């Protein structure tokens, strides 16, 4: 789990939303993929597709690449092409503003921040817990790496699991 690469991804996403891109790509890794899927699940991203160095073709109806595109299909990951895989993310915009506001790392490569359920409960309620600030704005979320995959803080509280705090999205 390389938080260095994750930090690069976070800053890349910030740059991409500021540049108002609709599609961007990040290096492929299981951590990135799972985080992106969690963000897609939370509604921050419109699509997450694993593709090659060139963007995958857009879905005929949706207008952006989709992982479940039946016409085009997604190229299977093999030993030969795994090094060239990238994750292609569809960014969302609503009323002239990007849905993905700002992605900020909480854990740093030099300092990993873990949090237990008690702390997470405080965070979800908007209070600070240790070095993790509370979720105090509407639509703010925190993504954690847990035993059961990468989850949003509220899901973690629901499942009563703590974990490594990855990043905060506003």
């Amino acid at each position: 789990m390389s938080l260095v690469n994750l930090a690069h991804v976070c800053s890349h996403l910030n740059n991409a939303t500021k540049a108002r891109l609709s599609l961007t790509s990040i290096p492929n890794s299981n951590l990135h993929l799972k985080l992106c899927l969690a963000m897609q699940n939370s509604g921050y991203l419109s699509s997450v597709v694993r593709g090659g160095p060139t963007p995958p073709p857009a879905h005929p109806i949706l207008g952006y690449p989709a992982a479940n595109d039946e016409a085009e299909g997604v190229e299977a990951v093999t030993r030969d092409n795994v090094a060239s895989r990238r994750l292609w993310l569809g960014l969302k915009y609503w009323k002239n503003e990007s849905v993905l506001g700002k992605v900020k790392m909480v854990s740093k490569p030099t300092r990993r921040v873990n949090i237990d359920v008690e702390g997470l409960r405080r965070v979800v309620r908007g209070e600070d817990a240790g070095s993790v600030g509370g979720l105090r704005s509407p639509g703010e979320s925190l993504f954690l790496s847990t035993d059961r995959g990468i989850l949003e803080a509220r899901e973690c509280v629901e499942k009563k699991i703590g974990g490594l705090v990855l990043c905060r999205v506003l």
Partner: protein
Amino acid sequence: MSFARPARCLFCNFSRNAIPGTRVPRRQFHPTPAPLSNRKPKIPSVKAPEKQNGSSSRQDLKPEDFKAYTEEETAHLAKEYSAAQMEAIKAGEAAISPKDLSEQSVRRTDPYRFKYLDDFSVIEPGIDRHVRAPETNSDYNFKLKSEDQFIEDFGRFFAESNEDIRPADFVRFAESLRLTEGKEENELNPHSALVPDLFGPGETIDEPRVEERKTAAEKGEKERSLEAEELTDALKSLLLATGYTERQVRELRTKTLVSHSVVNQTRLGKVRRAYRLSVAGNGNGLLGIGEGKSEEAADAKIQSQYRAIRNMQPVPRYENRTIFGDVKGKVGAVELQLMHRPPGFGLRTQHLIYEMCRAAGIHDLAARVNRSRNKMNTVKAAYEALMSQRDPEEVARARGKKMVDVRKVYYAGKV
């Protein structure tokens, strides 16, 4: 176990009943299906003539069975019944044809018969569906009355009414006189193929009625005209631009927060002017800021206040007391943070932001002003922060997620 069959009478094979015990199905070596004729049917077959004999005499009635009364019978009946009753009996006999009697007075035996006895000619209110009024008023067989019918109507009117006919009576008669024959509703409220109007006369979808709007505008003009003599040009243009009356403008909360003098250096020397920055709000969610510069301090103040009133914009407020989430603002070197707080917390902020919150009608707020604390930029940054609040509804729609205000749920919407 012995596979040998017991010796049997040769003739016994011809009668199946003689085989003792159950028959075990054996494999057939030919494609002909196994004979089933020897199996006893579950329901014993009843021969048709038997059935006819066994059933009641009412079954299978023919029209010929319903004969008219013979003369003897009528004579016999006449002893029992009066002449009028005899007439009624005759009429009843004539009304129902023997064919209907034979077909309909028989109890049904078909598989689709009802499992209960009932008289379907009567509508029972508790069981049957309501008999609704017909859906349309249309009568397709209506006719215009002929002249003779009109004459008849007039004749009936004159015949029924007393001798002293007042004009009012005649008017009532003329109004209630029908021009057509057929259903009355067809004439009074006929069917129209046109779509009914969405709005009544003078109504629109969101605006008040035309007359109300007009009266409101006239009222405003009257009020304005009464006070116009004392108004300055600046105030007049303000009232014109905002649509407020002078009284409404006076009721707004305005506060001059920043006042200092500014200097313009020309080749002739320094030109000093007064600078004022004011905020204006209605104490109920509207807030604006305005700057004014003038040689006269009073002018600058008025100017800034009027500009603030013109710039008033709605500030999103959570529960009409605090803000949605924590917001940040930055103008110049002033970086500040506004934080929402629970009910009863109060305004624990510095005086500039406090006055802005008072004007806007925010009651619970905390603020932190970092880096520079320049007054002018603090006010501007706070305004920027207040306006940059994210609406939870918009966030939910943008993300495609359902959001629930837990406080509202907990207090059952009474907050």
